[in-house]
């Protein structure tokens, strides 16, 4: 009850006219920055901090947090329309979102993404108000050992991404893991597969790679034909029908839970949340084979999950004073620049700021929904631009995006290289989703295993001491073994069937 009272007090702060304006400004800027590939939420928030020096602390933080979760709305737009992920967390939306755009359902995909984002953000904020304490205690159970087990579970889901050929899906998964090995190794700090390039020391940049594999590869496929003949997508309805809304309800709810939960675990990124939600949807779906051909579930789940993650990642900031993701670290910096230290103490010292900011999350999500739904009509008009013009603009757009990740032309070349690789892999009928999954989780796997073994000074027994890790790893083992069982049973049936005939 007390929480609700406090929240009401927070709303009086968040709904004050000047704070509404700040939430609106943050939402608009966030959407815009989300649309630009390369410039992500971290850079966006950091850029804006100096501008907020003159503002009241509450107003400043309302604006910066709105910008942060606003980018998750914006990142979707280019993924769906152009197959170019605006943010890393929206990469997976390319698979079904772009397929939907090709069928003329871009408006539907964008609407569902916006609605899902709204619900995900709101549910995560409700969790923050009602259950922050217990959720935080749960999150604290996740040490390096449990984190490692969680990553292994995530990697085992790779099998769930296999389409027609298990071998091809596995090859792509391993390829992603090999790419994840590039850089300074976490054990000795030696450069590994860097070909003497300093730029590879921190690993291959995720954003240039996915922009190449998805966006550029798509353009290369299209240039095979006369560009004036290429039509990217048809356009029909903007508003989702009853069936589409019904199909999205489950994914949105599951995405909210997955996103909020992963938001609590430091080190888990929004892209991991959206990806795991995609796989979860594929697993529970009755038609898993149709994923990748424009299933609304493949847009609704991930787009909800990445927003729930953005808001969920703010929970440990308020309860423990720990920034669970790089962007939240920047927001923490913003708090401190205004002389506030985020953490449990904030609720006692500055309840108006703490609750005002939390209430503003609801307000901001409503603003973003109202802002984004009418914009969809404008966004889809992009698809009316003749392709001969559009493709050149996309190329320029991606080059600027790749450059701005770390202000280096090297990343543009990486993007071009992976564009060619993506093009060839598509021609050879390889699925691309497994590479993205392992590229997200791969770097975390080796590092978290190493951290876990540091704790036990090399003994694997430490994994068995953690009940959570044992459960997660057993789950992973079951997921890995189940398809093999099914395969053998099928074969047996086939053989016995042949004998009978």
């Amino acid at each position, binding site marked *: 009850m007390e929480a609700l009272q406090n929240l009401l007090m927070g709303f009086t702060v968040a709904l004050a006219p000047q704070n509404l304006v700040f939430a609106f400004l943050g939402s608009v800027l966030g959407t815009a920055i989300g649309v630009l590939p390369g*410039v992500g939420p971290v850079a966006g928030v950091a850029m804006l901090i100096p501008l907020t020096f003159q503002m009241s602390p509450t107003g400043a933080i309302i604006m910066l947090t709105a910008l942060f979760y606003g980018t998750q709305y914006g990142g979707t737009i280019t993924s769906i329309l152009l197959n170019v992920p605006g943010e890393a967390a929206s990469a997976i939306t390319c698979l079904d979102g772009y397929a939907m755009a090709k069928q003329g359902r871009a408006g539907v995909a964008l609407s569902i993404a916006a609605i899902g984002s709204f619900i995900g953000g709101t549910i995560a904020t409700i969790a923050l108000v009602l259950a922050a304490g217990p959720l935080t205690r749960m999150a604290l159970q996740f040490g390096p050992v449990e984190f490692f087990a969680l990553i292994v579970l995530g990697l085992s889901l790779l099998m769930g991404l296999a389409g027609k050929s298990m071998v091809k899906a596995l090859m792509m998964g391993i390829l992603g893991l090999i790419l994840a090995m590039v850089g300074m190794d976490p*054990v000795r700090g030696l450069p590994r597969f860097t070909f003497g390039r300093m730029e590879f020391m921190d690993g291959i940049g995720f954003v240039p790679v996915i922009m190449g594999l998805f966006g550029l590869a798509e353009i*290369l496929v299209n240039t*095979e034909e006369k560009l004036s003949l290429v039509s990217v997508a048809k356009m029909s309805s903007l508003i989702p029908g009853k069936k589409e809304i019904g199909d999205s309800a489950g994914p949105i709810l599951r995405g909210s839970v997955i996103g909020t939960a992963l938001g609590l675990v430091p080190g888990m990124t929004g892209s991991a949340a959206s990806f795991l939600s995609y796989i979860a949807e594929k697993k529970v779906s009755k038609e898993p084979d149709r994923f990748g051909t424009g299933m609304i579930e493949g847009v609704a789940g991930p787009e909800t999950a990445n927003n729930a993650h953005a808001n969920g990642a703010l929970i440990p900031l308020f309860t423990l004073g720990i920034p669970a993701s790089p962007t939240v670290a920047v927001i923490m910096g913003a708090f401190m620049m205004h002389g506030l230290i985020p953490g449990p103490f904030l609720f006692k010292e500055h309840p108006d700021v703490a609750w005002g900011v939390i209430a503003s999350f609801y307000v901001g999500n409503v603003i973003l929904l109202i802002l984004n739904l009418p914009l969809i009509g404008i966004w889809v008009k992009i698809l009316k631009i003749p392709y001969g013009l559009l493709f*050149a603009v996309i190329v*320029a757009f991606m080059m600027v995006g790749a450059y701005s990740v770390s202000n280096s032309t090297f990343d543009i070349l990486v993007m071009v290289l992976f564009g060619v690789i993506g093009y060839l892999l598509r021609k050879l009928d390889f699925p691309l989703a497994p590479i993205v999954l392992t590229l997200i989780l791969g770097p975390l796997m080796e590092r978290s*295993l*190493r951290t876990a073994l540091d704790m036990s000074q090399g003994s694997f027994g430490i994994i068995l001491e953690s009940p959570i890790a044992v459960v997660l790893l057993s789950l992973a083992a079951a997921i890995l073994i189940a398809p093999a069982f099914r395969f053998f049973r099928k074969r047996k049936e086939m053989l016995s069937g042949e004998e009978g005939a």
Partner: protein
Amino acid sequence: MQRIHQGAALCFLAFSVFVAWEAWNLEYYTPLGPGPGFFPLWLGAIMGGLSAVWFVQTSGRRGRPKEGAFLPEREGLVRLLAVLGTMVAATFLMDFLGFQLAMFLLLLYLLLIPGRQPVWLTLFIALLGSVGIYHLFGSYLDVQLPKASLAFLTGLGL
């Protein structure tokens, strides 16, 4: 088509040998657990195994891939390579000519030749995409796009 798939499988096999070979030179195990070479070695080995399986699959009659041209016809291939070449060239030129000039030339080429857009529209978009983007990113997004390193161009403010 089958030949191409077999060739690709061999490429993957060669790649996995390379990965495993590189990993071989790294420490395999340390007192505190897997060393730098542990995962790459296994990944290389598994990749090799999978490539071999795929090679066998595509070589067999059942796994034969669907027929169809792998590469586009000549005209399309030329266009594709031209687009790629322009991107690479513009990237290298960026460090000398600066972002604005390199991007202007890239857009000029892409819009006029493969894109077949009218000249006035090309010039407008190319200016917007080079000079416009440069100033937008520089002043509002804090991203300093490359400046020209050739003295006479720097003098022109590029």
